[in-house]
């Protein structure tokens, strides 16, 4: 049976092929299309999701975000992991460790 994924700094998250992050020209907003759901992530969430490319680890994603936002990585780490855990729990992200 499947098990719940717990996000660690080593987890490598990505959007499964059936979860689509796309830009909606009409509304000029990013949108996530998922089974029977449509989500409107805010700007920060979009930045995180774009980095979930199946190559970078959570640790690297945090590092890159800290650089982009000129933020202390210790300050954002918890929030990013929490976000990824939430999206993983909603089955919107898949994770390789």
């Amino acid at each position: 049976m499947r098990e719940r994924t717990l996000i660690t700094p080593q987890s490598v998250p990505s959007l499964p092929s059936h979860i689509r992050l796309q830009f909606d020209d009409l509304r000029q907003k990013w949108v996530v299309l998922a089974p029977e759901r449509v989500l409107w992530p805010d700007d920060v969430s979009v930045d995180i999701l774009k980095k979930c490319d199946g190559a970078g680890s959570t640790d690297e994603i945090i590092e890159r975000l800290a650089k982009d936002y000129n933020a202390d990585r210790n300050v954002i780490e918890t929030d990013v992991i929490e976000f990824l855990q939430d999206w993983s729990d909603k089955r919107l992200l898949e994770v390789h460790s």
Partner: protein
Amino acid sequence: MPAPGPPIGMLAELTHRCPLQCPYCSNPVELMKANREIDTDGWISVFDQAADLGVLQVHLSGGEPTLRRDLDDIISCLSARAVYTNLITAGVNLSEKRIAALVNAGLDHVQLSIQGATADVTELIGKYKNGFASKLETARLVREAGLPLTLNAPIHRHNIHQMRQFVDLALELDADRLEIANVQYYGWAYLNRSTLMPDLADVKEQVEIVETARAELKGILNIDFVTPDYYADYPKPCMGGWAQDAFVIIPDGTVLPCHAAQTISSLEFDNVTDRPLADIWENSSALEAYRGFEWMAEPCRSCPRKELDHGGCRCQAFAVTGDAAQTDPACILSPHHGELRQIAEAAVAQEPGEFNYRRIS
């Protein structure tokens, strides 16, 4: 009234033809024959207009949508417009080859209906021989083809005791989601209400089992729960508000705000073969009728919950009170709220009768 925002979702009932005869079918009691269905070019034009209008997700439903031979063309057209496609199927007539063709066309997701967690209940409700085995095989093929799967289980007194089995089945079939949807009583289900109504003790047990499973399976299986209106305290935000961000098109091209809206006899609907979809979305009298909050009377008008539930379901208000502008009687603030509970209690006090099975007459 300000112009509505662009719609997000669209339910396309491609045909009313179906191999199953479920007595709670959400199609109207007067079903359309095949000769009323709009043709391939008609549907393609509708979907192009829908994508232009802002629709991001299309639910391809029926009847049984796979009975349309042009389903692949329809999916290809939507996929080319980056619209997310969801196939809602009974899953009793799909070969491996057909599923591969749908995947090639760009299908994104499959919702498979399941009438019972066992073969006997599935066949009692759907009236289709070996339906259960076919559905399990379809689920397996869908997953093998790499598509995500939702199982949809409509719930009533004949399968409310199978909650845990539905959950186990969803896990066994590697489904991504399970929808536990208590039957909503209009159309066919309204005709069969006294035979389908569960009792309060079973509903309470159901809620407990679903909540336990949800907590236990967090991150493993998404469980959506549509609670039973007749035992509710507050109504559901039906369709997220009347003609707010979604609409329905039925086989002949008529545009509805929700699939049951034709039960409201005072409404007149428009058809995409007569008017452009954008014009219908913005101006159709049926879509304008209960859009926003203007139409509301008390207790809804001054209620702080109105933004949450939009006054509930117009079809249920009409079915129970005869006036679609009334508060949904599922709400404890409705003067008709007590009637719902009485109807439910009277129904469960009787032995269930014979089903009035869904048939095209």
